[in-house]
């Protein structure tokens, strides 16, 4: 019995232990089950929401732009580069006490407290989250401001440790040389987009892409991991420009424009053998660092964007086409007669009659009559062919924006006198770069090399990605180029370009003085000139071609030989030694002499002769050329409208009346000749008067 009781007790104890054990297990199972359910709920159902919250808590995403690519000159000098700057801004929604914030900011930045308070309180009212306080600050300034703004009570991962204030990374574009080569470099806007020059044309290469940076922070705000989205870094551009040459060119041009009181001036220097543009200057200019203060009219790069009538400089093409077709030789003779020539009721004149001379002499004295005769011998097609071969009428393809192609009409649209006008550089519009390229072609033995301004494009680690490979085309034969060089040399030695003589170097070139087209008068204005000189040096192995164009010089000599040739000389004298070009002549002080007697240059496109009744039917329609005189019919019409009483009462036949009216109209239009006018214009004027009296 006792044993049975004992066994039962033992059995009960075992049972109790088992039950208790099972209870504990059950509790554990329920507990773990509960946790598991919760975990499943958190990790499956609330996964996205919670992971986002966690990421927000520890991650900081910043979007910033890579620094825009730099622009260098050929010697590696920086022309444009971007630097990191910071902007201090306020999140007005986070600022509790605007007055206290304004006070501390005013102290740190040295700004007016009241204006800051106004700014912050108005932003707070509008719930603005970005209120820029200070812009364009470098790291040193940032550190100073951080120190000044530090508030011990604020627990913040980022500086400044002040309520509602943050820094934003920005970049600033700087042009260390100021206005130097401003028209080439251009400028970019606040968004880092190029607006002019190389900055605009090469924007895709220079543009710094936007990158995303993800920072992982611990609970104290310390960054322990950083992920940066990969983007292609911007490239750097190396130009063919040389800083010292550009500076010399700009200085010479500036001095000349100021001295001659010209409206503007432009100059370009090209390396003949490579087609590299060594300098390209315009005056007036601007400083891309202070773009808001600049006059937008000065942004235009006249060297490639302005179209002008080249005048006598274009005789290069006239004589070139004749030489190329073996129609003339430099030593061959041409008769300029009494210094006038009539073509299709249009009388062209020389400033002075030079009689029977060689073609070399005719070019040296810039005889219009001889050039027209030469052009007429070549004929329309032959002349137009060479004009096209030289590249007039289409852009040169230089890597700058908004380049003009010039104005060249096909022979089908020419008038009777167009060939004559074009032979002396009228009825055609060219850019200074086109004209310089034509001369560089002659200097380079007749082979035209496409002018270019970008030498190479490279990565930030200086690995070259692409280099310039300009096209080269033969325009005229080697012999023609040699002959032309010889003829152009004579222009400097004994012709209109004697002020282009250099010290220690031989030089050659051609002067040009053209009447400007007046958009108000709708005809060329004999009181306004475009004076130019295009030349190269040294003559036997020309290294550089320099083109100088002065727009409306008003003081002193106004012809190309008097205004532009000295600029050519000043530039060439400075840059040839810089380029290590060996002297080919002995240095003489002759060039400094102010006693150089200028040979007057034939200026102007002559006069339309009055139309007779029969002629009127043959009259060609008005031409939209840049320098075309209004046709005689139109002129007669206008003359009738403005007839003076004297003309009205005149008993002379209608044609005479018309002629007088034309002359009276012209007298009325022509501005008075200033007393300071050089020797050239008055001579030309008196010559014109004499001829009129004869007729």
């Amino acid at each position, binding site marked *: 019995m006792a044993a049975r009781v004992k066994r039962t007790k033992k059995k009960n104890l075992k049972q109790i232990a088992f039950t208790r054990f099972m209870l504990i297990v059950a509790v554990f199972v329920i507990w773990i089950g509960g946790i598991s359910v919760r975990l499943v709920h958190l990790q499956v159902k609330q996964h996205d929401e919670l992971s986002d919250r966690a990421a927000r808590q520890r991650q900081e995403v910043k979007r910033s732009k890579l620094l825009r690519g730099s622009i260098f000159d050929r010697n590696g000098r920086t022309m444009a580069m971007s630097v990191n700057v910071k902007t201090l801004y306020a999140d007005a929604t986070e600022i509790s006490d605007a007055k206290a914030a304004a006070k501390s900011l005013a102290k740190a930045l040295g700004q007016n407290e009241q204006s800051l308070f106004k700014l912050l309180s108005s932003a707070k009212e509008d719930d603005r989250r970005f209120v820029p306080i200070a812009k364009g600050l470098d790291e040193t300034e940032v550190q100073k401001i951080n120190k000044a703004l530090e508030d011990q009570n604020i627990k913040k991962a980022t500086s400044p440790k002040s309520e509602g204030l943050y820094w934003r990374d920005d970049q600033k574009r700087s042009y260390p*040389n*100021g206005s130097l080569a401003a028209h080439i470099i251009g400028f970019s806007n606040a968004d880092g987009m190029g607006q002019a020059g190389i900055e605009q044309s090469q924007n895709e290469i220079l543009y710094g892409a936007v990158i995303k940076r993800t920072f992982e922070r611990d609970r104290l705000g310390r960054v322990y991991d950083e992920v940066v989205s990969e983007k292609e870094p911007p490239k750097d551009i190396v130009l063919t420009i040389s800083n010292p040459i550009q500076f010399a060119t700009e200085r010479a041009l500036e001095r000349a424009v100021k001295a001659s009181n010209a409206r503007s001036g432009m100059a370009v220097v090209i390396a003949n053998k490579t087609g590299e543009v060594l300098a390209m200057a315009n005056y007036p200019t601007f400083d891309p660092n202070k773009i808001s203060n600049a006059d937008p009219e000065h942004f235009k790069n006249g060297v490639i964007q302005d179209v002008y009538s080249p005048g006598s400089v274009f005789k290069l093409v006239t004589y070139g086409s004749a030489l190329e077709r073996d129609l003339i030789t430099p030593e061959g003779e041409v008769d300029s007669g009494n210094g006038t020539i009539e073509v299709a009721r249009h009388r062209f004149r020389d400033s002075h009659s030079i009689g029977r001379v060689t073609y070399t002499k005719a070019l040296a004295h810039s005889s219009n009559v001889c050039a027209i005769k030469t052009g007429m011998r070549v004929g329309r097609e032959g002349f137009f062919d060479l004009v096209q071969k030289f590249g007039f009428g289409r852009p040169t393809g230089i890597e700058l924006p908004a380049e003009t192609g010039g104005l060249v009409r096909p022979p089908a649209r020419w008038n009777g006198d167009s060939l004559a006008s074009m032979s002396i550089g009228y009825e055609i519009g060219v850019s200074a770069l086109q004209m310089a390229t034509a001369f560089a072609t002659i200097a380079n033995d007749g082979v035209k090399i496409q002018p270019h301004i970008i030498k190479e494009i490279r990565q930030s680690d200086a690995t070259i990605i692409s280099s310039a490979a300009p096209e080269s085309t033969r325009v005229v034969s080697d012999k023609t180029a040699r002959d032309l060089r010889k003829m152009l040399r004579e222009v400097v030695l004994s012709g209109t370009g004697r002020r282009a003589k250099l010290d220690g170097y031989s030089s050659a070139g051609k002067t040009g003085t053209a009447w400007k087209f007046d958009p108000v008068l709708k005809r060329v204005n004999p009181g306004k000139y475009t004076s130019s000189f295009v030349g190269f040096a040294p003559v036997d192995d020309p290294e550089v071609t320099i083109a100088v164009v002065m727009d409306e010089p008003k003081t002193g000599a106004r012809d190309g030989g008097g205004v532009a040739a000295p600029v050519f000389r000043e530039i060439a004298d400075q840059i040839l030694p810089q380029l290590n070009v060996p002297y080919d002549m002995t240095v003489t002080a002759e060039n400094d002499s102010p006693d150089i007697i200028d040979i007057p240059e034939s200026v102007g496109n002559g006069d339309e002769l009055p139309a007779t009744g029969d002629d009127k039917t043959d009259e060609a329609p008005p031409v939209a050329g840049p320098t075309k005189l209004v046709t005689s019919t139109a002129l007669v019409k206008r003359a009738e409208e403005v007839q003076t009483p004297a003309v009205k009462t005149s008993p002379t036949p209608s044609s005479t009346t018309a002629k007088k009216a034309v002359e009276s109209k012209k007298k009325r239009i022509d501005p008075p000749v200033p007393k300071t006018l050089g020797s050239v214009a008055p001579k030309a004027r008196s010559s014109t008067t004499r001829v009129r009296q004869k007729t």
Partner: protein
Amino acid sequence: MRKRNAPRPRMTADSAARSTEISWQYLVLLLICGSVFAAGFFFAARQHFLSMDYGFKNSKLKKQLEDLEAEQRRLTLEREVSLSPTAIRKATRMLAGYKDQGDEMPTAAVVQTVAKGLAPQAIPVSLRLPIKATVMSKISAAKISEPEVKARQDNSENHARNGATRERLAPEKMTAVAKLR
């Protein structure tokens, strides 16, 4: 098939004691496993904190690198600004004692032109002196060692040519003089 009535083997006291006794090998193995397990956790934690630490250091270095690069760019820009022709011209004007106003600074060529047109005494002192004074002060500022001074004196005594004097000058002085010229 097991027999239902078959007697179960009785557990004696000895066998019961033997069965409850845990062998020491088992304990050692358990200890080792536990240690490895704990060491693993410890190692993992250490690695984690180490990686965090490296992360902090890495990000700090990155920041420093960025700051230094930015500073380098800023300094490059400053150097370029100070080396720009305009800045050099300004500095030259200041050295030559001209106000930073007006367009023209008389260069050698201009002085020469003035000299041609006018008698030498008619050239304003302001056009001549500063250039000379600057050059002289620059030359005197260049330190010349005693042997060089001696060599110069010898040369002057012997009426030696300038070329001979130049040969005796230290190369760095030669460069300095050449630059000034």
